[in-house]
């Protein structure tokens, strides 16, 4: 064994296990390094309980000024990397200062934790939940261990869910009326709709429906807005004439969508839009964007 390397090795192994870890649903989470790993899934107001075991490296003792576990809800802006903003922070002290000679386990429990925001991995912002165990060792540097978990919150179907119906056009050139059956869609929903052509004087080549995500971070002058096109779905091929109506049926399940987030802790917002794009034969684009609200519907199964 290499003692020099050993000297920098943590003096102990810290592991965090959840009490219902085996039965709890695991979901993939993308790490910063691009890897995905499976982590447990929680929702707001659940009890988060488990066990933290600390096992000193063989033949060593761990001297500490106290051990604690924190449950943190953090928002990280990428332009301000490494600087976390904790919007939730709960602490449980696990041990008074002392020494650990052998493997020791500490049960912990955060009951009915308020986690209003969902885990989110965006272009410029990340919202994560983590359990953080700290073995405080004063001058020797604390030993810290993290365990990520994912939070998803489910919404009931909205009581009011109007369709989106609108007539748009360019004078004497193109008039269309489109209709989406709802304004609020859950993540596995289907967008049903129709486009009526009231007037067509241009030679349309095709028509697509795009799903766009607009993520805005920061506030005031520092606002960053990032728009991604998550789906490009061809609705029509060829040039319609007046009076044609083109059906829309777009299944949302194949796309990686999240619920709409509005002004999360004054830090960021994520909004979704349906963008109807008509392209003419000279590749000019005519489009109309409509916001839709995405929500997560409790999975029945």
């Amino acid at each position: 064994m290499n003692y020099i390397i050993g000297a920098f090795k943590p003096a102990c192994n810290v592991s965090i296990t959840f009490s219902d870890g085996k039965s709890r649903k695991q979901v993939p989470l993308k790490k910063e390094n691009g890897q995905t790993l499976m982590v447990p899934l929680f929702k707001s107001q659940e009890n988060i309980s488990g066990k933290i075991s600390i096992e000193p490296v063989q033949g060593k003792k761990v001297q500490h000024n106290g051990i604690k576990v924190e449950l943190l809800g953090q928002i990280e802006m990428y332009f301000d990397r490494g600087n976390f903003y904790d919007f939730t922070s709960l602490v449980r002290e696990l041990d008074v200062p002392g020494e650990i000679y052998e493997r020791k386990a500490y049960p912990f429990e955060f009951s009915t934790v308020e986690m209003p925001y969902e885990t989110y991995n965006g272009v410029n912002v990340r919202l994560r939940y983590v359990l953080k165990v700290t073995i405080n060792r004063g001058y020797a540097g604390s030993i810290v261990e993290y365990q990520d978990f994912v939070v998803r919150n489910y919404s009931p179907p909205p009581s009011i869910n109007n369709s989106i119906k609108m007539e748009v056009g360019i004078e004497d050139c193109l008039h269309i009326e489109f209709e989406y059956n709802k304004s609020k869609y859950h993540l596995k929903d289907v967008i049903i709709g129709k486009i009526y052509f009231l007037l067509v004087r241009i030679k349309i080549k095709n028509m697509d429906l795009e799903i766009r995500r607009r993520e805005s971070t920061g506030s005031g002058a520092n606002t960053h807005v990032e728009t991604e096109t998550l789906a490009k779905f061809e609705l029509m091929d060829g040039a319609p004439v007046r009076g044609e109506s083109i059906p829309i049926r777009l299944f949302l399940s194949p796309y990686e969508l999240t619920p709409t987030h509005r002004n999360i802790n004054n830090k960021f917002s994520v909004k979704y839009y349906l963008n109807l794009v008509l392209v003419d034969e000279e590749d000019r684009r005519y489009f109309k964007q409509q916001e839709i609200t995405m929500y997560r519907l409790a999975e029945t199964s």
Partner: protein
Amino acid sequence: MIQDGVEDEEKWLAAGITGLQQNAFYMHRALDSNNLKDALKYSAQMLSELRTSRLSPHKYYELYMRAFDELRQLEMFFKEETKRGCSIVELYELVQHAGNILPRLYLLCTVGSVYIKSKEAPAKDVLKDLVEMCRGIQHPVRGLFLRSYLSQVSRDKLPDIGSEYEGDADTVMDAVEFVLQNFTEMNKLWVRMQHQGAAREKERREKERSELRDLVGKNLHVLSQIEGIDLDMYRDLVLPRVLEQVVNCKDDIAQYYLMDCIIQVFPDEYHLQTLEILLGACPQLQPGVDIKTVLSRLMERLSNYAVSSAEVLPEFFQVEAFTKLNNSIGKVIEAQVDMTADGAVTLYSSLLKFTLHVHPDRLDFVDQILGACVMKLSSKGKLKDSKATKEIVALLSAPLDKYNDIDTALKLSNYSRVMDCLDDGTNKVMANVIVQSIMKNKTCISTADKVEALFELIKGLIQDLGEHLQDELDEDDFKEEQNSVARLIQMLYTDDPEEMLKIVCIMRKHILTGGPKRLPFTVPPLVFNSLKLVRQLQGQEENVAQEEASATPKKVFQLLNQTIEALSVVPVPELALQLYLQCAETANDCDLEPVAYEFFTQAYILYEEEISDSRAQVTAIHLIIGTLQRMHVFGVENRDTLTHKATGYSAKLLKKPDQCRAVYACSHLFWFDDQDGIKDGERVLLCLKRALRIANAAQQMANAARGNSGSVMLFIEILNKYLYFFEKGNSQITVTSIQSLIELITTEMQSDTLTHDPAADAFFASTLRYIQFQKDKGGAVGEKYEPIKV
């Protein structure tokens, strides 16, 4: 440029096929390993090749067929996939995740087909969904092929009655609704092609459209095969809906093709029962649509249907098919103002054929059609349009062919009015057709009215029409034509003399208008026809005592006289002379001396005044002599006058040999071989002697003029006459005179100056042989000949 275009297209097609095959290969690999996700991915990529806009419909079809074959296999895979437990509903959703619409819809139709088969959802729901979703393809060619694919995969899965996919009460409606909708959309796309792209490519576009038309028409075919469509449904729903689409699309090509399709695919009895609706659509079609062909086909079908079985005929009456068709044609012609005359005539011609098939007994219908036709045409004057005239000929020929009897046509009052619309040439052609028909069927036209009507019809042949000059006509054709007229005249005959006389008068009236060129052809048959009447009258007179009959031989002869006189304008004196003689002979048979004398007088006058050609004179004099010889009606005085004249004419012929021959022929005028005939031996001898003198003179003239004595032929001929009368017992002819004649001939023949003539030698030799033969016979004859030495 165009060549390049074609080459490019080949290249694009090749590229398309390559891409398609490549992806099909990966798709098959995925299918083999049951990898649904990859199968969908590669099939979508494969189908993406169909998104091309660069291929003409023809080439696109090639690509489509390849994709089609691949999709069959994919469908099999889907079927197995559902057996393996994959939910068809999920599959139906899964294929809709494809981002591009065209592959998505092809896949959707493919899965949809499996979906219907699985019966997890009612066929009608799936079909409705598919046909709705297909609206996403608005590009005509791609849309047509996609919908054609849909039609193809669904045709055996319609919720028809009796089908395993049969649904609830309105199941047939669902099936019909589906097909109709697909049809409507396809037609719209097809029509739209016409209006896209540059105007200069119109021709190419129309060609492309016609290549695609069967894709649209197939829907109607599918529709016609839905078992559940009964007559009520067809009448109340299917047909009106289809017609609505046809009328509303306002496209010439589509309207023409679809109307024709409707007529061809649906059963005849349906057409018959919905005639009103179907015909109602016709006037609403675009002016450029070739309605005449459409309607003609319809009538043709109905005619065949009527012919197919006698049981269906009452249906035709019940629905008043004729009236409806007739009205509709009227409306169509009214609606299509710029319809050409030939179009209208074609329509009427088809209607006529229909009528002849369905209502062969309704002549009034036929006349009505012709009447309508006249109405349409009369405004335009004589037709110049060759197509139209051809159609009219067809129109007018139809009743003739059908009834095989001109009688019927003669009853049609409008028939001749239609003919009046034809230009002269065609009118003649038509007249010829009529004449030929009469000949072919040996129809005997036996009443005066009909004859009158017939001559009205064929007046193109009988007289010059309008200002057309004859010189443009081919001589042979003209002869041919007039010969048929001559033959026709012979067909006009009845046994009733009164009627026959009327017929003769009518014929005469018309024929005499024919002008100099025709008369030589038409007068002789007329004369002979009249003479036939005379002989008939004569036959009757013997049986029945005619009381106050208007038809007497005398009267006919009067007519004849005038008729032949008409020939003088031509002039054809030889012919007239022959006819006079012919009449004289008949008059002779009727014992009408003054009439016969009159005819002879006419003949003589002609001879004297008109026949100046010497050769014609020879012929004429022989004819006169021949006829006169047979006349027995004349009294002595008349006879003397006539024979005297005839002998006189004979002696005045120009050439000596002709004179000689005519004179010795005259000898027969004084010798009848009958029992109580005139036997004036003296004058016979006189004639013969005179002939001999002329023969002598001829010989001398020949000697003087050419230095040889010419032929002895004449002498031999005269010798034969001598022998004839000798044998007949003319006492004036003596053995001595015969003997001296023989010697004369023998001497002549031995003379040096004589031109050697083998024919004369042979003639003389055989004459002598004859005398010898008679001698050897023995008995009375032998005795008579005995003294003659050879």
